[in-house]
């Protein structure tokens, strides 16, 4: 398990997730900076990501899509805000309409990635996410596809199992 800490705030709709990797900071940064590496971990195996545009500079854009098992594609995009190689990356994460253009009326998620080299050569990565609304979170979960829906059903069933023994 690479995740060492998770903090969630259901009122502010924020999440901070901390992960540690046994690799120097430069190689961890590469995972974001190299589009061929990014697309290998961004999407789940059932909905793999393809990165079509990748400009990791302030004001730059990243365009990608997930491909579903039935061949359907689900486009997304980043608007890059801050880049400080290899320590800091900040971007807005949004969804596209069926033409692949950013959906202007859909709110965006703000993500800040902070990399820190540890004294022992390992790298810690903190991902801070701020969600604009419950709707956006639901859309994100839908884009996360199978995992999200399965988790939702599991949680509902779990909650009922708890209540039935009360």
């Amino acid at each position, binding site marked *: 398990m690479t995740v060492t800490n998770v903090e*969630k705030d259901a009122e502010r709709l924020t999440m901070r997730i901390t992960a540690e990797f046994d690799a120097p900071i430069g190689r961890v940064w590469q995972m974001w900076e190299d589009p061929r590496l990014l697309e290998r971990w961004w999407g789940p195996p059932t909905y793999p990501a393809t990165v079509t545009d990748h400009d990791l500079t302030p004001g730059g854009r990243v365009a990608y899509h997930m491909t579903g098992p039935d061949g359907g594609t689900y486009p997304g995009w980043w608007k890059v805000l801050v880049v400080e190689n290899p320590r800091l990356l900040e971007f807005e994460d949004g969804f596209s309409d069926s033409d692949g253009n950013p959906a202007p009326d859909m709110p965006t998620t703000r993500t800040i990635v902070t990399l820190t080299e540890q004294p022992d050569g390992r790298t810690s990565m903190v991902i801070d996410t701020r969600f604009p609304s419950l709707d956006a979170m639901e859309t994100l979960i839908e884009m996360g596809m199978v995992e999200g829906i399965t988790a939702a059903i599991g949680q*509902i069933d779990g909650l009922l199992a708890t209540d039935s023994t009360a």
Partner: protein
Amino acid sequence: MVVDLDDRSTNELFHALADPTRRDILVQAMRGDQSVSTLASRYPMSFAAVQKHVAVLERAGLVAKQKNGRERLVRTEIETIRLAARLLDEIEEMWRHRLDRFGDVLAETDEGETT
């Protein structure tokens, strides 16, 4: 959610959840803004059939219907904060999987790499 369930209520709850369409309605109704008609358009069955599913969920206390003009909106009976917490849990799960993949790809790129 409901506490102190008697056997009949427990059975109603489990009956309500036993059907995949009803489970999907429950997830959709978490948005709180879906009319029965909007919900019905998602499923390959008659409007009356969807109404029956909603009625089962309503009897089990899982959803409530709210008047919105001429429409009836179906809402899952949980507070917004608990919904937000649940959604955050799902997103955490998504990121955990994503970071596992991150670690796997990172380990792969270690082989033969010069830094």
